[in-house]
């Protein structure tokens, strides 16, 4: 089987997961900006947490430079993990994976694609990554579009409930490792506590900056109190 087809096959479960989660994103984003904008955001970003934070910032309606700066900083912090994943993945690339191919494939580095690609035995090729990225991309964008369109048809009780899907996925990502690792547990609790303080005691700080400040503070606290051993970091 060609590497491209193999990548597509490995990407099917990722695409199915994306389809349902991006459906929720489509509903949320389309409420503010319509189906076209929601779909374009998913086509150009291919990331859940960053897009949700991004739409929340846009919904605040700030058209001054400070709003764009908040957007840039928020994406930098939320998506910083992709940088580390890129560094890790760059050690596994086969020798034909040249710079132009890296420029293309880097667009598709997500948590799930990174997890599947890095668990492959041996080196990985550009075609393998292209196949996986293509099918994940199709799942993510079509789910967004369907959610955005359905959001205009479905009763509000259904679309309101779908708003929980993305957050439910986030809980499913953070809770299992928090059970296993005291460091993750402390980081998760510290970030949640910090976020509550901003919401109720410092409501004049916008949501994007509150997430940045809390994420940096909680991750630094974790790194200081519970440094991670080499093989996990």
């Amino acid at each position: 089987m060609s590497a491209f087809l193999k990548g597509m096959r490995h990407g099917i479960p990722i695409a199915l997961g994306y389809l349902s989660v991006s459906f929720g994103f489509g509903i949320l984003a389309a409420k503010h900006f319509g189906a076209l904008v929601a779909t374009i955001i998913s086509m150009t970003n291919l990331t859940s947490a960053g897009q949700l934070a991004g739409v929340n910032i846009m919904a605040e309606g700030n058209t001054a430079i400070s709003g764009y700066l908040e957007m840039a900083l928020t994406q930098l912090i939320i998506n910083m993990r992709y940088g580390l994943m890129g560094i890790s993945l760059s050690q596994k690339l086969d020798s034909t994976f040249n710079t132009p191919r890296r420029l293309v494939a880097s667009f598709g580095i997500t948590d799930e694609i990174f997890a599947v690609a890095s668990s492959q035995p041996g080196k990985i090729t550009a075609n393998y990554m292209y196949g996986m990225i293509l099918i994940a991309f199709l799942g993510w964008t079509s789910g967004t579009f369907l959610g955005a369109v359905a959001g205009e048809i479905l009763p509000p009780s259904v679309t309101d409930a779908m708003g929980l899907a993305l957050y439910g996925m986030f809980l499913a990502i953070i809770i299992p490792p928090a059970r296993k690792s005291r460091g993750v547990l402390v980081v998760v609790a510290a970030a949640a506590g910090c976020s509550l303080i901003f919401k109720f005691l410092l409501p004049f700080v916008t949501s994007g900056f509150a997430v940045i400040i809390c994420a940096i503070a909680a991750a630094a606290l974790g790194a200081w109190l519970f440094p991670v051993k080499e093989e996990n970091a």
Partner: protein
Amino acid sequence: MNTMSIVIYIAVMAGVTYLIRMLPFTLFRKEIKSQFFRSFLYYVPYAVLSAMTIPSIFYATGNMVTAVIGTAVAVALAFFRQPLIVVALAASAAALLADVVMGYL
């Protein structure tokens, strides 16, 4: 918001996100040595997701009662390591069910 601002916002969002993915993947050939920095990067996703979820999840349905019920279901399923898609859909289903039931009370 006007169309121009929406275009700028999306360009900033997509541009920054692409550069974060592209630059290390394309340019980086060495490993990060600092244990503090490696640990910091390891914890960042958990910190981000936690700060984004709490307290926003309680406002996600527009009704705090259904949101809390959906959240409780999500926490319980995540605690028992159910797949992401199961947790995500069950949270929504529980909130919807709670909304329907409350309509009859």
